[in-house]
């Protein structure tokens, strides 16, 4: 059954594409996602959430719910035994609402019952009296003097300033633009879920789909008032993440209910609840001014970026820093004045999503690059190439890019790809929207657009970013076999595959098992920021090196014990027979591994060695647009990305496809529509994500320019594909239509010839005539 090409790489070392070790379970239905967990006698938890975005709670009556047969517990914030708030960077978010509501969907009360429907109905019998207040729904207005405060201390979460060169620099050609990005949802397919089991020692065991076990544990323990050791978290199967599982959802709630009832409690969100259960991508409002010499060299960029963080902080400060430090793109610019603001409002909380601040900025700076190229009558690729950053270039933060930065090469690669064939005008199936339209494509036009992006890999600004790995080598049935244990979350990216590949390569053994991720070992950090193969891969490699040293010492090798000693795989070095002899007792090493340190940004100037590594990707999009129907078909994406070292080429390709799909979604369809703080489309009927019909063919060039600072020379790959695919598609639509699109996602009404209003005034369009937010002119630089 298995094809020969696969047999040869089944074992899989670094650079191979072995099958996923969890693949068989995933295709047979045996893989246990967090929503599949089950214990006899378990209860089901349900959450009562506020329908209002901003309100005071004036009364709360749980008696109707408590009286229902089958109900075991009804909890409010008064039942939280420890810290009543939580949060990734600052605990500003109540576990359960305390007297006031700051966003629609804020959890107010919890129910545990013997059936999920009983729990849901009981939640409906909790009587909450609200005194509604007008929500603060516009991020720029939130910064205006006199705006009502969402939290004590004002609405500014963080202001990141980056200053480089002359703030008053002048240039021959100047273009300005205002751009807006709507709120994107990660929309992982497996909603939030988990199972909390009370333990005899007074602690709790939690099985949950998450991205970062230890940061969950610490927040859960604080709110339960327990020692962190009494909160044991094991990773349940993860149905996609994309940033949305970096914050807590049902973790504390399920544990509270379990400890309160003494019974296992399962919580599993519906799709609708999931839209309220996690943070989203920050909507952004951006103003850019680019100055350029007549010869096409960028002289300065001035920009301000306002990110709507919604009601709670989540990771907004780090998102703001990314937008600021990466906000001029992969270009050399001697003079930069950049201000990025994260802001509290009464909108849904926003935090991590694939691309993390770089996505919003990329739409702004790449739109500007096209606008400037047009002003100069230059080819957009040539203009970018002329200003492209390279190894040795200096970031606006003063940081020197000290490994490969092949921006120009990536751009040339996508430009030089042969174009896709022209549309077969006789074939209605090739039309945007397919065959069932009311036109025959008389007004279909084609366009081509480009985008290139920069993304930081790993955690930045002096964060102590590390991972812990234990590798154990022993004889099993007379054969050497290795076990790897980390707390790193496999979220679909294929981490377990690549960890096995690393162990096979380092130790030369065939049999490798990756143990379930849990908190009995030290933190691995988050499966985010494209960092896990880098950091946990680095930790596993270091643990293998230590195991190898132990064995070489047993063999009496004089080279043994010297740190950093990296002879080839053990089986090769010692011979398999010798290895068996050496493994009379198992060899085991636990290593905590760190990438090179970063430094905080200077608060006044934004100068600092803030980032660990940079990653780059370029995209060329070809689109067909039906200008009568406002429909877009992405015909093809050509992309080029430097991955440093393709640890698993098939998995890299999968990341690139997936990132492009999500970037396409943001370009032309995906938006959580929020009106006056109220979400209008919390379902897959109304929040559209790309289907298999929307996914274009992908032409891919992968460069492997090793980063000498990174394990194996690798470069994080997960995020760049999701960043510049979006502006490339929008640029292609502009090229096709001539419409100066300034807002994403682009909607049909932005594209039809009869639509006169293309200005940056989307919020009122989004409101559909109701409660248009007051728009206060605001210049953050004044």
């Amino acid at each position, binding site marked *: 059954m298995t094809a020969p090409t696969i047999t040869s790489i089944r074992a899989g070392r670094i650079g191979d594409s072995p099958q996923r070790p969890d693949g068989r379970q995933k295709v047979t239905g045996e893989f246990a996602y967090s929503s599949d967990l089950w214990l006899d006698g378990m209860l089901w938890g349900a959450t009562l959430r506020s329908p209002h975005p901003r309100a005071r709670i004036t009364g709360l009556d749980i008696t109707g719910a408590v009286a229902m047969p089958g109900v075991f517990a009804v909890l409010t914030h008064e039942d939280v035994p420890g810290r009543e708030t939580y949060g990734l960077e600052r605990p500003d978010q109540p576990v359960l609402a305390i007297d006031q509501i700051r966003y629609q969907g804020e959890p107010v009360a919890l129910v545990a019952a013997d059936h999920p*429907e009983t729990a849901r109905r009981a939640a409906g019998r909790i009587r909450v009296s609200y005194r509604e207040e007008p929500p603060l729904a516009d991020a720029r207005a939130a910064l205006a003097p006199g705006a009502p405060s969402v939290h004590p201390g004002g609405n500014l979460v963080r202001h990141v300033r980056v200053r480089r060169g002359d703030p008053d620099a002048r240039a021959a050609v100047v273009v300005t633009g205002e751009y807006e990005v709507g709120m994107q949802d990660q929309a992982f397919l497996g909603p939030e879920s988990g199972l909390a089991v009370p333990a005899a020692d007074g602690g709790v065991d939690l099985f949950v789909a998450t991205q970062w076990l230890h940061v969950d544990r610490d927040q859960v323990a604080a709110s339960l008032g327990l020692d962190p050791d009494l909160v044991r978290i094991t990773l349940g199967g993860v149905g996609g993440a994309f940033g949305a599982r970096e914050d807590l959802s049902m973790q504390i709630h399920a544990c509270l209910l379990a400890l309160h009832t003494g019974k296992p409690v399962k919580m599993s969100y519906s799709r609708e609840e999931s839209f309220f259960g996690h943070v989203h991508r920050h909507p952004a409002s951006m103003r850019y001014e680019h100055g350029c010499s007549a010869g096409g060299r960028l002289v300065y960029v001035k920009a301000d970026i306002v990110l709507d963080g919604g009601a709670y902080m989540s990771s907004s400060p780090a998102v703001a820093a990314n937008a600021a430090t990466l906000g001029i793109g992969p270009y050399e610019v001697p003079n930069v004045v950049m201000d990025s603001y994260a802001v509290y409002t009464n909108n849904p909380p926003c935090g991590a999503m694939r691309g993390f601040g770089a996505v919003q900025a990329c739409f702004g700076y790449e739109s500007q690059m096209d606008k400037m190229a047009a002003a100069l009558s230059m080819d957009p690729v040539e203009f970018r190439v002329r200003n492209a950053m390279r190894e040795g270039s200096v970031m606006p933060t003063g940081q020197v890019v000290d490994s490969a930065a092949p921006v120009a090469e990536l751009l040339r690669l996508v430009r030089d790809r042969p174009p896709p064939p022209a549309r077969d005008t006789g074939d209605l199936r090739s039309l945007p929207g397919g065959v069932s339209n009311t036109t025959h494509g008389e007004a279909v036009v084609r366009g081509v657009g480009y985008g290139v992006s920069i993304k930081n890999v790993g955690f930045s600004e002096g964060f102590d970013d590390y991972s812990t790995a234990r590798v154990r080598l022993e004889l099993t049935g007379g054969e050497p076999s290795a076990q790897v244990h980390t707390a790193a979350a496999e979220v*679909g990216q294929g981490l377990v595959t690549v960890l096995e590949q690393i162990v096979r390569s380092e130790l030369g053994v065939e049999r490798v098992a990756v143990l379930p991720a849990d908190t009995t070992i030290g933190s691995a950090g988050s499966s985010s920021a494209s960092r896990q193969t880098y950091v946990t891969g680095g930790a596993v490699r270091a643990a293998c090196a230590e195991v190898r040293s132990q064995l070489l010492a047993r063999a009496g090798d004089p080279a043994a014990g010297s740190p950093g000693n990296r002879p080839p795989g053990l089986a090769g070095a010692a011979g398999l027979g010798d290895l068996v002899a050496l493994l009379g007792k198992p060899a085991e090493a636990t290593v905590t591994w760190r990438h090179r340190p970063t430094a905080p940004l200077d608060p006044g100037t934004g100068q600092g060695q803030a980032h660990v590594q940079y990653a780059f990707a370029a995209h060329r999009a070809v689109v067909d647009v039906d200008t009568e129907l406002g429909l877009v078909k992405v015909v093809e994406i050509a992309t080029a990305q430097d991955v440093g070292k393709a640890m698993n080429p098939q998995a890299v390709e999968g990341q690139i496809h997936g990132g492009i799909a999500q970037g396409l979604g943001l370009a032309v369809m995906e938006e959580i529509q929020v009106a006056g703080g109220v979400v209008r489309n919390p379902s897959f009927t109304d929040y559209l994500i790309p289907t298999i019909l929307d996914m274009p063919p992908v032409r891919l060039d992968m460069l492997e320019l090793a980063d000498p600072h990174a394990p194996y020379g690798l470069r994080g790959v997960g995020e760049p594909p999701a960043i510049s695919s979006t502006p490339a598609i929008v640029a292609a639509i502009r090229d096709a239509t001539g419409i100066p699109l300034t807002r994403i996602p682009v909607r049909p009404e932005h594209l039809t010839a009869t639509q006169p209003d293309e200005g940056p005034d989307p919020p009122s369009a989004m409101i559909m005539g109701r409660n248009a937010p007051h728009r206060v002119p605001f210049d953050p630089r004044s």
Partner: protein
Amino acid sequence: MTAPEAGDQVHTATVTLTVNGESRALEVDTRTSLLDLLREHLGLTGSKKGCDHGQCGACTVLIGGRRANACLALAVAHDGAEVTTVEGLADGDALHPLQDAFIRYDAFQCGYCTPGQLCSAAGMLTEGGPSAVTADLTGDPALTPGEIRERMSGNLCRCGAYVNIVRAVTAVSTAGTEP
């Protein structure tokens, strides 16, 4: 004061189904979806709940050989039916050719959509007939990548494994391993 809710009235019925070749009879609340019956009453959690509203396809199963969203099927409406879930695709230890192809072509990442993709593809391979993109309406069309995309468009994959899903399904359909 709370008025009695319609939800408080429980009516049950006996449903008999053949699930993955095994006959199962059980008493369920008449409002139970086929998906909940499979997952919660039979412990067959392979079929996934991505939306419970017929929007994502993660719950796709075969009912009488035809694919259906189990979340939209009331269990009592399918009394006597033959149901195949992802757990029933393999023949013992031998994977279904689609399962094998999904692994080889890496047609998934998180895998949450995969049970639905597999059941949908399995149903598609045998269902024949023209689709909205079929050019020649006489006879069963060849399963070109365009046909496959059209016919698989009810199954969302947020990881965006679509390119490899088309490759995997194409490999199986052109290998002629299905009747």
